[in-house]
């Protein structure tokens, strides 16, 4: 499978074409032991519902934001 470049949380990284959003979450948040509680994903400024993470595939050039809760703000 050919690699494509996507921007994940501000960093360009090569991933196999067809990588799903679910794959990206697993790669980016490995310390969570498979739990995706409290995580949300936007691809090209569009929120991707959790239920579709496994079926949304990255084809290259996308900007992916993977976020969670941190202590902060008032």
């Amino acid at each position: 499978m050919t690699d494509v470049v996507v921007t994940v949380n501000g960093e360009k990284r090569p991933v196999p074409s067809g990588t799903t959003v679910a794959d990206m979450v697993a790669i980016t948040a490995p310390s969570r032991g498979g739990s995706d509680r409290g995580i949300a994903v936007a691809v090209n400024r569009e929120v991707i519902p959790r239920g579709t993470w496994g079926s949304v595939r990255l084809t290259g050039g996308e900007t992916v934001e993977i976020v969670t809760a941190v202590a902060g703000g008032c």
Partner: protein
Amino acid sequence: MTTAAASDDQGLVIAGKSLGTRLILGTGGVQSLEVLDSIVDASGATIATVAIRRVDPSARGSLLDVLHDRGVSVLPNTAGCFTAAEAVMTAQLAREAFATDWVKLEVIGDEDTLLPDPVELLDAAEQLCDAGFVVLPYTTDDPVLARRLEQTGCAAVMPLGAPIGSGLGIRNPHNIELVAEAVSVPVILDAGIGTASDAALAIELGCDGVLVASAITRSRHPERMAAAMRRAVESGYLARSSGRIPRRWHAQASSPAEGMPSFTA
């Protein structure tokens, strides 16, 4: 009312949900998950704000786990957003991440004051209310803007007492009273609290609740300060609902003038 107990107070009710307390905990400035756990317990808070940031692959433990284990609801905020567009996007991500429609809306105008940008704030509030969010906007202590936010459909308004993290207390108590008078949704004092008396004053002035973050998390003994804030909001509510005495220019004797013995020779 026949009892003086604070337990007869149902606490904040926002969008039909009873929080059972008038204190909302902000997590900004908390030094560790252990400290967070202790202040959640000591504050009696049932809801705490969190910010939304990129996942840190090296992060250990999760504040979500701490809050979940304590039975505390997550109130996502839009801290760090400077435009309505950023805030709306952040709220949408938060809704997906935490399965909650609630959002503490912050749209900041500049880095130095961290004061709300009223134009962007109202814009974001309109968009989020239209999208079905329960919106709790951090706002200036302006009763006119508070009313506009209420008319937009916000579930509460959260006027500042002083700039975020300043600990300067309530700089304009009169405006806070005006805000409390201007709207019928809950008024929650947000930002500026420095110590327990500030929180009590907020409730005495007519606020329904208080959000405290830095005053607890950056104090020398966060757990003790959290306990102090819990008692402060309870005291403020008891005092307000007791009907304070009027202020007088001159003293008023509290013992009767009649029956004074005479010691004149």
